[in-house]
């Protein structure tokens, strides 16, 4: 599915942790990996090359063919240029905390808005992955594309994780409804996700399906990630109208800051 993956790094520990996920996908998909560092003048060149070299070495340990590139220039423009010239299928980039934000107005957000290929924004939680499962929140079956299935499968195989497909049925004041009605809704929610589970199972992945009823998936997903002790959550980026963003905030920002495990937000190619 992915012929070439670009992993953008900036010499930080954080970005190297994110690059590990790029290696994981490249290893499972048998893809080529381009480790790209942009020298914007903020970080010493030596540190950048050391970081790129380390990731390339790490890739080799997993049998991934990796090429390191360091370019000088503006981060966003240079990354987009390399993505285009390399004809990359997927770009992996870490989100960084600036001021109080993780995503909004970050380089990753700008890339996500402009890059023609699929983009994955990664927020690493730390280096210790203690859980044995990953969370796959799915808002609706229609949003599950072949690419998302492949990504899930690649990550689950690489980390030897079980996958929990998690579907939130959003409903205001759900607690006023009779329990039987709630049970049926949950059951229908799980049934709706079954075809997705089936496809993943066919690929040899251990899958569990869970549906919950909640007033907001923005609260339900972080809670599920914590209760299930998942080590990573893979989710599809969703678009929200400007008005909704003003009222409720950027959904990606909310997810990145409130989910405690590694969060991988994937946006399909434009």
């Amino acid at each position, binding site marked *: 599915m992915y012929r070439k993956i670009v992993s953008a790094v900036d010499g930080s520990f*954080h970005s190297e942790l994110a690059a590990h996920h790029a290696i994981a996908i490249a290893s499972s998909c048998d893809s080529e990996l381009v480790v790209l560092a942009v020298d914007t003048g903020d970080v010493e060149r030596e540190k950048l090359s050391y970081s790129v070299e380390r990731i390339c070495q790490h890739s080799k340990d997993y049998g991934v063919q990796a090429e390191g590139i360091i370019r000088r220039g503006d981060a966003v423009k240079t990354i987009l240029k390399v993505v285009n010239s390399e004809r990359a299928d997927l770009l992996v980039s870490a989100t960084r905390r600036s001021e109080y934000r993780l995503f909004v107005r970050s380089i990753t957000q700008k890339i996500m808005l402009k890059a023609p290929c699929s983009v994955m924004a990664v927020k690493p939680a*730390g*280096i210790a992955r203690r859980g044995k499962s990953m969370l796959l929140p799915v808002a609706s079956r229609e949003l599950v594309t072949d690419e998302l299935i492949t990504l899930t499968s690649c990550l689950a195989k690489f980390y030897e994780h079980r996958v929990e497909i998690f579907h939130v049925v959003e409903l205001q004041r759900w607690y006023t409804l009779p329990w039987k009605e709630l*049970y049926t809704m949950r059951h229908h929610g799980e049934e709706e996700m079954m075809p997705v589970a089936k496809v993943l199972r066919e690929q040899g992945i251990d899958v569990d399906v869970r549906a919950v009823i909640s007033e907001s998936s923005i609260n339900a997903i972080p*809670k599920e990630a914590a*209760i299930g*002790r998942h080590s990573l959550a893979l989710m599809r980026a969703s678009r929200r109208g400007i008005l909704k963003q003003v009222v409720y905030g950027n959904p990606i920002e909310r997810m990145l800051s409130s989910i405690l495990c590694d969060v991988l937000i994937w946006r399909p190619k434009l």
Partner: protein
Amino acid sequence: MRIQTLSKEEVLRELHTTEQGLTEKEARKRLLDFGENEIAERKKVPWLFRFASHLVDLFAILLWIAGGLAFLVSRLADDVGMAYIGLALVTVIFINAFFTFLQEYRAEKASEALKKLMPYQASVIREGKEIHIPARQIVPGDIITVRAGDRVSADARIIKVADLAVDISHLTGESEPQVRKDVPKKEYEEPTNLIYSGSTVVRGNGIAAVFATGMATEFGKIAHLTQEIEEAPTPIQRELTYVARTITFIAVGLSFIFFTAGELIGIGTQANILFAIGIIVANVPEGLLPTVTLSLSLASQRMASRNALVKRLSSVETLGGATVICTDKTGTITENKMTMDYIYTPYESKSKKLSDAGPSELLLAAILCNNAKIEDNKVIGEPTEAALLQGASTIMADVRSEWERVDEIAFTSERKMMSTVNRKENMLVLYSKGAPVVILPKCTRIATEKGIQNITDEDRERIVEHVSDYAGRGMRVIAFAKKSIEGEYTRETLEENMVFLGIGALRDPPRKEVPYAVEKCKRAGIKVIVITGDDPLTAKTIAREVGIAKEPVTITGSQLDMMRKRELEEVLHGEVLFARTTPGHKLRIVRALKEMGSIVAVTGDGVNDAPALKEADIGVAMGKTGTDVARESADMILMDDNFATIVLAVEEGRAMFDNIRRFIAYIFTHLVPQIVSYILFVLLRIPLPLTVIQILAIDLGTEMAPSIALGAERPEPDVMNRPPRRRGERILTVPILLRSYLFLGLIEAIAAMSAYYYVLTGGGWSYGMPLSDADPLYLKATTITLAAIVITQVANSLTSRTTKESVFKIGIFTNKYLIIGIAIELILLFLIVYTEPLQRITGTAPLELNEWLILVPFAVLLLFADELRKWLVRKS
């Protein structure tokens, strides 16, 4: 990659750090990336906002409309009386908001309690130097040093250690200090090379590399879950919302219909608005919320006197609906006190209860090879040793004074045994105790009835059989041995070639009152599930002994980890017991049970129990052994940690549900004469029989005391013999509404209107004659309407005490609070009727004796009519 499996070098490489630590520059950068190492607190809605939200709920909106209309009329018609009504209604809104707020308020300090477990300062190595920095500035990759007495500031992997032991009870509930090592562990092994944020260093010191900080630590995850789990409204809150909605529907509907009718028949807009206000005020049970709150508060006081402290008032009622109680074992079902129950000595060849045993050398060994002490009749020491000393001392008098301890080879978790060398006159004897698997191989001889002999294979087999038998019954088995020492000795060879003395079996016995409480639960259709960190055998034996389960499916924590959601639901349908679990598992079980439709009460005491306590419908924290975090997260605190107390609380909760039903039915009845008086005012164009202020005088005055007294009705004898009420069973049911509105309410309406008509016609009024608001005849007539409602409500309060049973059978005077309540109600009525200030406010006039007397038959009629109904119900 799992950090515990890596070598020291790999750990440092993965974290991009060295033994010299990070550079200040790198640390600053990482601080920006990973955020500060602190427990982030979720923003809470300030209590003032929460209070304000009750000013705009459905009841309140209705009353705001009525109040607004009153002010409007007062402004348009320059009527001060209407302004008073408006003011009274606004006051009612605030009173109701206050009581609703009180009902759901719970001091939420779990986050503060969690924060207290985090240290303020930490020692960290940066650029090769050890420095002290605020703990919140620690970042992944930092090298921290920990010493005895320190609190650990982040999750870290140990890279260097010297006899380090930490207390991680806040994460595991295991109170014994855990030894930490610096060697890599296999993935399936316990990660004993990790230390966690919030834990305390008990002894030794170490150097560790931080791999997670702040909310990413294990402790942060608990804090996160504790804060993330939002509490849904309790059933009683939901029910009150439902009642409010129903009433609003009726009130708005009636107002609209009669307002339109009023306009059509042309009664004038001002009178019509007054009418609309009247219909709204008459329909809204203004006293309901204060009554519910005060009754819940009284019930919570009763529960407090029975050792159950309720933190959120509305939880009192939730308890009554509990269908599953998930309970810990140690301390809740058992006494949390080890006792030596059985001993086995080879020379008696069979197991014996300790109470039947005589003095023996085994008991002597239990006393001498023991570091526990008896001071002021209290045994002080490690639980197992204390149990051995206590047990042996009841059989053998104090023998320690005859012996002098010469030497001790201490117990360690690796050796699993301890020995003491004791002298009595010229005799030097070694006594040892420990795990049978350790002691038995060190024995070459055995003390039998024929004296000391060489130990044979059959002897060993017999001993092992007894050990397995005890262990199979969930007991802890300790073996004893001795050795006579002649001359000099060397410690290295001391514990060899010993004489086997026998074994003692210890256990934590169940509390005496638990089997009866379990039996009660079974009759009440409540399932009890034991969730314990203890081993499966012990848990199973205790569960059987107290009657929780006969042959439960036992699921261990690791088995649960492998289970899918559906599989877990399947086992939860049957008899099940969870052993060797962590509190994370507890949360999963509680959630699965809730999704299956159960109303779950769950017990917990540790910091890590907090999320499960919050997720459960009723979180029950232990008062004696519980941590602050658990107590702050719970809805109820058990002051005696006793399972039986939970069951008592459930009983009280069930009674509360019945009682709320009783006084709702009682309150709803008087709404009918209030509404009817307004309907007749519009339809028949008679003078208004009851003013808005008089309605409020009934709702918030005379009615309050009897309603609260009905809330204090004792549990009916069969309250724990019936199944829990169905999830979603309404307080307000159609039969209750029919009984209140169309049966008893109608009798009250007939009484009120008859009395009103009697006074009016007796005073010379005839139909169609106008009557001013200040006319003494009108004042008297409205007074008797009010009195008629109150007097018939006295009869209603008596009959509302039972739903099917005759009130004469349970005894009219058995609820002393109700008698006091009725007395208060009547005194208030007389004050309204006969005292000048209240007459002025409520617009009443004094009544004559004969006027009072015509009300009595109506009260008697109501009482006996309902008795007849109950008799018919009993017969059918």
